[in-house]
């Protein structure tokens, strides 16, 4: 059976998350009540029968390492294959590669050792519940060199700005990769490439002093390669800023989106943490919200997302907000359009109100 290996390339990702990425890279930003951004692509890979996954992580990866552990939560703690976290430790004196090509160059072993002939490459900022088995089948049927996963976002939003747009002919062959802002067919950052070709293109890019594999090795080679397009349909989100992060979290409060993302093709997996079920105390008022286990709610929660272990004391109100793991909201507090990072403590009677367009963000472990 033909197989793929996975590569999550976090180099060249967009980092405009302010407080949320002070101490972590964007792949480990908490999302959707109990997940981290990377869980989506990682789960999609595993759910598509990929059982070897490498991660190129350049910086701020402490929290990522903590989250991933041995990979057991994604069934990646394996005798063969499994999870390979590849931080930058570069000791090759003859190395003259640049950008993400340094990762490719210094981790050639990962590709050479694997028995698989295909590589699925992805970032962490495209959030979806996708089964890449069909895309892989398509890639093989088409005998393509590269298959780009695209999605029609229908409504263009500010976060879509930096992503490539894809045009293809009727046979699905990609004819242009542009930054045409009127085209809503976006490249998701996920693509399948033949492994031997990948290694060849890596060498070529390095030889010509290039510094971005996808741009120089794939996009600029459009004329020489057979590049196909495979469209992802169903719920998805691009998250590359505080605004898009907030908007897409809130979108999950629509039941259809929530269902699509979490009960779609397969389950999205994350690190397990043995929290008890949510305790709703007498008099709690919770409407239109997502709550993860370990929460204890006394007060009012509306249109909000509560991560694991949050406690909302009596008389407190949480509205249109995202409250991350283990935050404590004391009595009489009023929060509206707010993002609290992990372990924030909001003391009695405090009032914090952001705007829907610009939610107020509080960094990890602050006491207010």
């Amino acid at each position: 059976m033909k197989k793929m290996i996975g590569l999550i390339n976090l180099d060249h990702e967009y980092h405009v998350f302010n407080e949320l990425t002070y101490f972590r890279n964007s792949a480990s930003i908490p999302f959707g009540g109990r997940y981290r951004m990377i869980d989506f692509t990682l789960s999609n890979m595993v759910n598509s029968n990929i059982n070897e996954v490498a991660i190129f992580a350049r910086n701020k990866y402490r929290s990522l390492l903590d989250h991933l552990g041995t990979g057991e939560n994604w069934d990646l703690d394996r005798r063969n294959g499994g999870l390979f976290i590849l931080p930058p430790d570069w000791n090759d004196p003859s190395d003259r590669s640049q950008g993400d090509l340094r990762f490719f160059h210094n981790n050639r072993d990962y590709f050479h050792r694997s028995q698989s002939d295909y590589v699925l490459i992805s970032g962490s900022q495209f959030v979806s519940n996708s089964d890449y088995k069909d895309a892989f089948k398509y890639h093989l049927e088409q005998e393509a060199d590269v298959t780009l996963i695209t999605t029609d976002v229908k409504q263009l939003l500010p976060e879509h700005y930096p992503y490539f747009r894809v045009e293809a002919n009727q046979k699905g062959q990609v004819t242009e990769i542009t930054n045409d802002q009127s085209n809503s067919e976006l490249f998701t950052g996920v693509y399948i490439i033949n492994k031997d070709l990948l290694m060849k293109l890596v060498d070529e890019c390095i030889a010509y002093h290039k510094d971005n594999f996808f741009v120089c090795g794939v996009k600029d080679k459009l004329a020489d390669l057979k590049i196909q397009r495979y469209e992802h349909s169903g719920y998805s989100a691009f998250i590359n800023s505080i605004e898009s992060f907030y908007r897409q979290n809130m979108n999950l409060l629509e039941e259809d989106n929530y269902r699509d993302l979490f009960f779609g093709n397969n389950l999205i997996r994350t690190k397990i943490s043995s929290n008890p079920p949510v305790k709703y105390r007498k008099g709690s008022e919770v409407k239109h919200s997502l709550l993860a286990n370990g929460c204890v709610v006394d007060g009012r929660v509306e249109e909000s997302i509560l991560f694991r272990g949050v406690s909302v004391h009596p008389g407190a109100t949480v509205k249109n907000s995202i409250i991350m793991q283990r935050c404590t909201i004391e009595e009489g507090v009023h929060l509206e359009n707010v993002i609290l990072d992990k372990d924030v403590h909001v003391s009695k009677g405090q009032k914090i109100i952001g705007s829907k367009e610009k939610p107020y963000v509080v960094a990890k472990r602050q006491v207010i």
Partner: protein
Amino acid sequence: MKECVGMLLAGGEGKRLGELTHHLAKPAVPFGGKYRIIDFTLSNCTNSGISTLGVLTQYSPLELNKHIGNGKPWDIDKQSGVTVLSPYTAKTGGDWYSGTADAIYQNIHFINQFDPEYVLVISGDHIYQMDYQKMLEQHKETNADATISVIEVPWDDASRFGILNVSDNLRIFEFEEKPKNPQSNLASMGIYIFTWSKLKAYLLEDAQNKVSSHDFGKDLIPAMLDDTQRLFAYRFNGYWKDVGTIQSYWEANMDLLDENLGLISNHKKWRVYTQDSNLPPQYIGRTATVSNSLINSGCFIHGTIENSILFKNVRVEQGSTVRQSIIHPGVRIGENCKLNRVIVMENTVVPEGTTIEIDEFQEPFVINQETLGGMLTPAGGESK
């Protein structure tokens, strides 16, 4: 050598739990929104550092074996971690476990592997949180041959329990099973620590005794007392409940809602562990009202939930009210239903408009697809 090996008796049928244990061993019955009954004992072992454990199964073990797996959630997936011990045949024949003591007797070779000083015998039928190390410390201090954990029960209830009569220094001089006129209100919790060499001797002796029922409470402990061995009681002050009947199962679940009892605290130093299903956060809709309840991951709530416990993947539609009830995983409750004091078993689909309300003084009612089919008129109308 291991200082103390745990032997967890999990083979019980739990007859009085009726439908709940029809296809399931009692320790595997879902409990507390996320757990199974046995999780409390397994987690006690984790939290008190008992890392070598034999789990004795017999009745309907499929779900139970699956649940325990390699013991990962309880951190007992280590070298001498958890071993599931089912009845077996050998050159000399083989038989079912005929009593609690017989179950241990048939696994003497398992315990011998670790050459332990002490053996902890517990059962997977009770809801409580206890640090077995403290009990072991007392066992060592008193230089006991056996230590039995006891809890004070109301005098009126004492005749329903196995009662230990003790001297001032807690030395046990008499054991009475369900005494008519109890002389003490210290009830045995079915938790024993034995000095292994002593226990082994008594097990071998008991196995030869043709009239013995091979039970710890009925045979082994009385035999040790007859020989004036050193048996001590260990006082436990805390919550302890045998979930032997539908009524007590329901009550123990409701007790979880009382936070003063602290049964499922969320502290890293003492947690209840279980197989986690990695489901998404629960979805609380615009029309939902939830009060004094425990709700697990993957639920969709659009109705009213009061004083209830909902396991994973439960869906409650708009206009429905669930009160004082326990809803097992995967249950669907249609629109405009009224449920009060019921236990709905796994994956039951409750059609819209169903009303089942049980009086305050009646035993809570267990519903599954079959019983529900019998109760409802073909139109899915009201019934009681």
